[in-house]
Every structure is written in C-alpha cells, then in structure tokens.
C-alpha cells in the first residue's frame, strides 16, 4: 500500500496535505490573513504538478488493490486538471474579497474538488469512481453557493438535485453491471465481458452508467441546470466548473468506452443521439440569450456534446482528437472566463451591452479575449480552428453514415459563430463622448492568466504538431 502511495499517489497526497493545511488555517488562523489562502493553494497545486513527474506511467500501474491505476493517459489528464485548477486559483481574487472569513474554506473546497477530479480520472474501480465523483461534486455545491445573493443559492440547489439524480442513475447502472459480472473492478469486468456474449442487459447497464456521468458535462437529459448555474455563480467558480469536472468526466467516459464498455453499439448510439440533441439545443438556445455568462454556458454545453459525440465513435484516432480538443477548449474557456472575471472585478454587468466600447481603453485584455472567443468560434490562427478541423476529420473518418451528423454539427457552428459575434461586437462599438468607458481593473494574476492562455491559444493555432503528437502517443498507449 505504501509503495502504491510513493509510486503513483504523490500528487494527490500533496493536494490532500494542502487541503488539510487550509482547513487548519480556516479554524485557527486570523481572518485578516485571508489573502494568503490563494497563495497557499497556488503553491499546493504547483507542487502537485511537480510531483506528477514522480508518477510511474510506464508500464501501467494498478495500485490500492486494483482500485486506482496510472498510465500516460491519467497523468496527462491530471496535468490538465491541475493546470486548470491553478488558473482558477489565480482568478479567485474577487471572491476572496467577498467572503473574507471563508477564504480558507473556499480554497479547501476548491482543492478537494480538484483532488476528486484527479481520482475520477485514475479510478479503476466503480467504488473508487463513485467516491471520487462525490468528492468532486460536494465541494462544487458550496463553491457555487459562495457568491452573495439569492441566485447563487438557487443555482447551487439546482446543481445539487441534478447531481443527486444522476448519481442515483449511475449507481443503478453499476449495480446491474455488478449483477452481471459480480465485480466492481474495471479490468475484471472487461475480462468477463470480452469472454461472454454481448447482452442487452450489459448495454443497458452501460447506458445507465454513462447517463449518470454526463450530468456534469451538461448533456441533454441533465442540461437544464447549466443556464441557471452559470447565471448565478461567480466567474472564477465558472472557470473551474466549465473545465475541471468536464475534463475529469470526459477522461473517465473515454476510458470506460475504450475499456470495459466497448463493443456495444447501443451505448454509442445513445450517446451520439444525446449529444446531437444537446448540440441542437445549446446552439439554438444561445441565440436569444443576452447574458454573456449564459451564452458561454450554452457554448460549453455544445462543445461538451461535440467531444462526447466524437468519443462515442470509439477509435484511437478519435481518442487523440478528443484529448486535443479538450485541451484547446479548456484553455479557451479559462481565457473567456478570465476576462469576465476582470470585468466582474470592475463592476461591469454581464449583459452583452455592458461591454460596449471596452476596446478603446483596454486593448491588450480585449484582444486576448477576442482571440479566445474567435477560438471558440473556430476561426483560424487560434487553437480552436485546428481543434475543430481535427474533430470534424475524426468524425468524417469514422464512416460515411456520419456525414449527415457532421453536416448538422457544421451548420450548428455557423449558428455558434452568430452568438460569438454577438459577444465580440459591443467591445468595438463606438460610444458617445458622454459614455464613460471603463478601464478594467485587472490584478496581475488575472492579467497573467489572460495573456498566458491567449498566447497558448495562438501558439497552438500556429504550430499544433507537438501537442497533437503527444495526444496521439497517449491515445495509442491507453
């Protein structure tokens, strides 16, 4: 057990240590020192990222009596999750000023959620997966509710109910799978399934499990929370919510689809249909939205559905595409929410009109933001363009029967371009002399996040080869 810890669990252990430190500080430290909580979290996550290098990835390692595994795939996902977590922590300045006494608690919860997300990806056992899933969900309820006002409480409650229902469905599916195979271990289940005849009951259990997992991705049957939650939460929480849980979920769903739930046509079919419905719903819903947060909520839902659709057509090529798209999307989303975070700290509203004419006074920040939105829309010189082409080519290569699906997705990206333009337009608007254009009062940490992500977006857009190679390497060795 202790060998397992030193072989693969050091990053998680480091995070656990810092969670403990934050809780202790929350109990004993003076509330006046709340500003240091952010620094402590940042140090914890950076240390954890450094410790990722100690993790054994080659060959695959199964630790904790087969409950947790480690390979290149999990390490890459851990790295992305930690990186997104790091950026989120840098964006938490506003909310710390809002909830001064609770700043330590807030960061303890944030770290716990990251800890949960890491374990979700590396779970090799449905029980580990379930516990990690709860570890991921529970802090998020409080994170959402941490903003002041009625809306955030409502949002938190909605998220709680959706998550509870989906967890129930997930457990239902797991119980069926246990009934068939009498095991919780993914490897054992895979061995059992690959030897036996495919049965409908098995597909049913698989569908239930995936349905339980996709609620965090805001895919169709559980998509309705996304608008309210995004409207009600603070932007740094959103930067977290739109990246870390989604990355973790995609990570585990891809692994499940490749590994124990493979060779089932029904599961692929159901996921494909659900993600298509989500893409249609999210993109059409966003047209009439006027709140930037809500538009980005729909966009995150739509992007998750593209990823899920590609992941459901299981192949190595598609898996590498999914990982690449996920990385690009996470960077772009943090960029977008980072800008909104800066706007929020300047007391700018979240309606589209509230951003009128910001370009004149804040050239650098606005250009970074526009690069992010252009990337989400999938226009060139940004990572979004490469990611979109790569994703579409993966779907096209999956077979000619997916051409109509692909055509629908492509036309939906045109709709998406419309609402992304709706976000960009007001920034460049010429305003009257009487209208006072605000100067965004962004802290250094916020500027750092914005510029770093913008540079990464453009760099990946111009030279994606290394990242694609990495994704392919990981996908081939799963």
């Amino acid at each position: 057990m202790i060998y397992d810890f030193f072989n693969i669990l050091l990053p998680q252990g480091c995070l656990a240590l810092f969670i403990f430190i934050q809780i202790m500080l929350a109990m004993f430290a003076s509330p006046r020192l709340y500003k240091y909580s952010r620094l402590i979290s940042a140090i914890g996550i950076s240390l954890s990222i450094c410790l990722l290098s100690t993790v054994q990835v080659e060959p695959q390692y199964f630790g904790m009596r087969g409950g947790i595994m480690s390979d290149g795939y999990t390490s890459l996902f851990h790295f992305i999750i930690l990186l997104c977590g790091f950026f989120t922590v840098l964006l938490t300045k506003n909310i710390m000023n809002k909830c001064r006494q609770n700043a330590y608690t807030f960061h303890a919860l944030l770290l716990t959620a990251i800890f949960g997300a890491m374990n979700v990806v590396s779970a090799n056992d449905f029980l580990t997966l379930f516990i990690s899933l709860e570890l991921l969900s529970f802090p998020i309820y409080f994170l959402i509710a941490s903003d002041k006002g009625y809306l955030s409480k409502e949002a938190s409650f909605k998220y709680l109910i959706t998550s509870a229902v989906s967890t129930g469905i997930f457990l239902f599916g797991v119980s069926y799978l246990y009934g068939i195979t009498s095991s919780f271990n993914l490897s054992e289940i895979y061995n059992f399934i690959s030897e036996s005849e495919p049965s409908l009951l098995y597909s049913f259990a698989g569908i239930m499990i995936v349905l339980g997992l996709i609620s965090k991705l805001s895919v169709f049957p559980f998509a309705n929370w996304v608008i309210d939650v995004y409207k009600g939460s603070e932007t740094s929480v959103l930067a977290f919510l739109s990246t870390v849980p989604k990355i973790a979920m995609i990570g585990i769903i891809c692994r499940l689809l490749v590994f124990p739930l493979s060779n089932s046509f029904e599961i692929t079919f159901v996921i494909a249909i659900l993600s298509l419905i989500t893409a249609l719903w999210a993109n059409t819903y966003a047209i009439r939205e006027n709140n930037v947060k809500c538009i980005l909520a729909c966009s995150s839902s739509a992007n998750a559905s593209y990823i899920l659709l590609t992941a459901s057509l299981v192949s190595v090529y598609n898996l590498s595409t999914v990982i690449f798209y996920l990385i690009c999307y996470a960077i772009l989303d943090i960029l977008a929410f980072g800008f909104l975070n800066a706007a929020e700290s300047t007391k700018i509203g979240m309606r589209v009109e509230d951003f009128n004419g910001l370009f004149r006074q804040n050239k650098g920040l606005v250009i970074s933001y526009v690069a992010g939105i252009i990337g989400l829309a999938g226009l060139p010189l940004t990572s979004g363009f490469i990611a979109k082409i790569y994703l579409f080519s993966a779907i096209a290569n999956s077979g000619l029967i997916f051409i109509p699906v692909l055509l629908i997705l492509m036309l939906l990206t045109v709709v998406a371009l419309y609402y992304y333009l709706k976000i960009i337009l007001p920034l460049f608007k010429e305003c009257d002399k009487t209208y006072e254009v605000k100067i965004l009062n962004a802290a250094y940490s916020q500027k750092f996040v914005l510029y770093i992500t913008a540079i990464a977006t453009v760099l990946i857009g111009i030279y994606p080869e290394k990242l694609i190679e990495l994704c392919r390497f990981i996908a081939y060795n799963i």
Partner: protein
Amino acid sequence: MDLLISIPFLVFLPMAVSFLIMSPLFSSNEIIIRRFTKGFCGFHFIYALFLLVFFDSANPYISRLSIFGLDWIQSLGVSFSFKIDGISMILSVLTSFIFLMAATASKINIRKNHKFYYSMLLLLMSAILGIFTANDMFLFFMFWELELIPAYFLIGGDYAGDYSPENKQSAVKYVLFTFAGSMFMLLGILLIHYFNYISSSAPSALFENIIMYSTPMKIQLLIACLLLAGFGVKLPIIPLHSWLPDAHTNAPTPVSMILAGVLLKTGAYGIFRFNYEMLKESFVIIAPILAVFALINIIYTAFVAYSQKDIKRIVAYSSISNMGLILLGLCALNTLGLKASVFHMIAHALVTAGLFMICGIVYLRYKTRNINALGGIAVQLPRLFGFSVLIILASIGVPAFAPFISEVLTIIAAMFSDMSLVIKICALGALPLLIVSSCYMLKFLHRAFMGEDLSLAKVNDISMHEFVVLGSITAGLIIFGIFPSVILNLIN
C-alpha cells in the same frame, strides 16, 4: 536569401506588417500609419512584379521560386506548402495592385480608427494572397476562414464617419453567409481527404497528391456540390448572392474596391482549383448545369442592376453579372475558356475597382448615392467625368479596353466548347448581356453626370490621390486591352 525570394515572404509579409501596425510600439499618428501602409503596399507590388518577371515555368530557377513546403500537421497529412503557377501569379500581382490602389484611396475615405483599419487591411491582403498561393487543401481552407476576420471588421467598422447600424448587420450577414458556405466546403475537403486516403493510403492534402478518379462518381458529385456551395457564396452564384449588395454598399470605398476586385475572385479561383482541376470527371457533368446558373447570374442581375437607385448597388449587381461571365468561361472546359476567365477576372477587377472609386468620389462630394438626386457632375468635375467615361465604356465592353477581349473570348470559348449543347446555348444567351450592361452603365453615366445640375454645393474636382488611382486603373485597362497576350501567355 532564399527566404526573401519565396512565396511565404510574399504572403506573410503583409501579416507581419499588420501586426506591427497593430502593436502598441507603432506610432498612432494617422499620417505615419497611412504613408507607411501605402509605402509598404507599393513595395509589395514591386516585389510581386519582380516575382512575375522571374516567373517562367520553363526556367529551372523557378522550381525554387514556385514551390515552398514544410510539414505542418503530420497526422492529418497537412503541410505548410505554397505553390505558384501562372494563374496564382497573375492573381497575386492583381491582389497586390488592388490593395495598393485601395491604400491610396484610403486617404480620402478613412477618417478615424486608422491603426485598426490599416492593420486589418493588410491582414486581409495576407489572407487573400494565401488563398491564391496555397498548395494544400487545409491551408487553403485556413486562409479562406482567416479572411473572414479582417473582412468582418472592415465592412462593419466605423471608419468613414457615416456609421449606421446597417454596417454591422451587413458585416454579420457577410460573415455568416461565407462561414456557412465554408462549412459545406470543409465537409467536401474532409471527404476528399478521406477518399484520397483510401485510394492512396497515405494521408496527404497537397493539391497534386489528390487522386480522385478511383472514387465513385456519386461521391465525386456530392463533393463537387458541397464545394460549389462554399465557392458559390463567394463568387456569388445567384441564390447565394444576397449578402453582396449590402456588404458592398455599406463598406467604405477602398474596402468595396477590394471586395469586388479580389475577394470575389477567390470563389472563382476555388472553383478552378478544386472543381475544375481536381474533380474534372464530375465537373464535366456539372458544367452544363453551372453554365445555366452562370447565365441566370448574367441576365438576372443585369436587370436588377438597371432598376437600382443607389449607384453603389448598381456597381455591386454589375459585378455579380460579370462573375457569371467568369463562371461561364470556366464551364466551357477548354483552354480558351480558362484563359478568358482569368483575363476577365483581371479586367473586371480593374473596372469594378474604378467604378467603386467613382461612386466613392461622388458620395464624398455630394453626400448622396441616390441616382435621382445626382446630376450634372460633368460640369463641376470635368476630370472625374473624363475618367468615368473611359471606365464605364470599358465596363460596357468597348474595343480597346480589356473587358472587351475577355467578354468576346468567353463567348467564343463557350460557343466552341465540345462539352454540351447547353453551354453553347448559354453562350448565345449571354450575348444580350452586352446590351443590358450597356443600358445600366449608360444610365449611370447619363443620370449622374449629364443633365441638369441638381446640387448647389460647390465642390472641388478630384484630388491628386484620386487622380492617381483612377489614372492607373484606366492605364491598366487600356494596356491590357491592347496587349492581352501579356496575360494570356502566362496561362497554360
């Protein structure tokens, strides 16, 4: 040194300069930015001419000059590859020239936001040059999409001081139309890539590596239609044209010159590169249908142009009509048709840039584009009148001007096309174009320049900048009208 005489230098230099102008390090003084851009465009034109002089497909020196390739995304087989052949070379020089004219014309038309305007102008230049020189499908597509960003800001921005919400609407309309079209095109490109991968089992997206003849004909037709949906928006083919009059009307004059002068030609170039060269088998089947569309383009928009009140809209519709003629030349599927088509691209680019310039000059002086409110300009602006007569006569297709050659060549090529009777009938049907186009153009000349002087305002005749633009365009029209073989010999 190799890099300095290469195509990426030609393509990416404007982009680099665009970022330079955009950067906070560069001066924000209007005059410095304007002169710098103008000077750069002049340099670029000379550089393009220099490449043209050295360009010769028989010369071994050219093999270094005409191809440039690097790997870009290996897993997709996408390479960062450029290639110049005769048509690319001509269109690149044309692009460079039109941008030089537009940059010169910007002095009088652009009143604010200089920094943003000029950097977007150069970014657009880079994108268009990239479209004309790309040797890889995905690279082509990247430039095709890249062009949307600057074009959007150029059409929808507030530069001339007469901003209205319609500007933004027409910019959004333009972007959505093109983006929707390009999505169809992307699907076509992905299908080509997929089937090429099946037949040659090596992922490659280079134009010369694509082998499509082993693909089933139905698939080829599907791909051809998907691609045509993309190019048809840009060209435009008639049911997809409704973005064009709005975009041209609301854009500032230099941007209109660029839009009609070179941006529309990217559509024709795409049809040539993809449908005409790569999917030749299916193009043989599609060509008669396309010829009918071309005929509709020519006749219908000519009548629409005649009924317009806004002078910019007249010119915009006339350019749709002329693009139909270019399409007809391609549909003839013989060398003469191709030559005529490319020649008409150049002739029409010059004519339409000149016409938009005239509209811009008139609008600047009289603050109206309504043809009924204008009159008697000839008395007040005699020099403008002189140029207008020349350019309008050229656009009608009077001998000694370039469009005459290309129109006649197109009709002859279509008549002698051995593909299908439909194309010959279309060529016969296109002959009335000459009459209708002379009707609306002469109406423009007659109503606006002749007749009673309706305006009381005292205005100045054209300035030096305007003189240079109109003069060089007219010179080009006459030179190519008298020595068409300069261009025709470059196309094989």
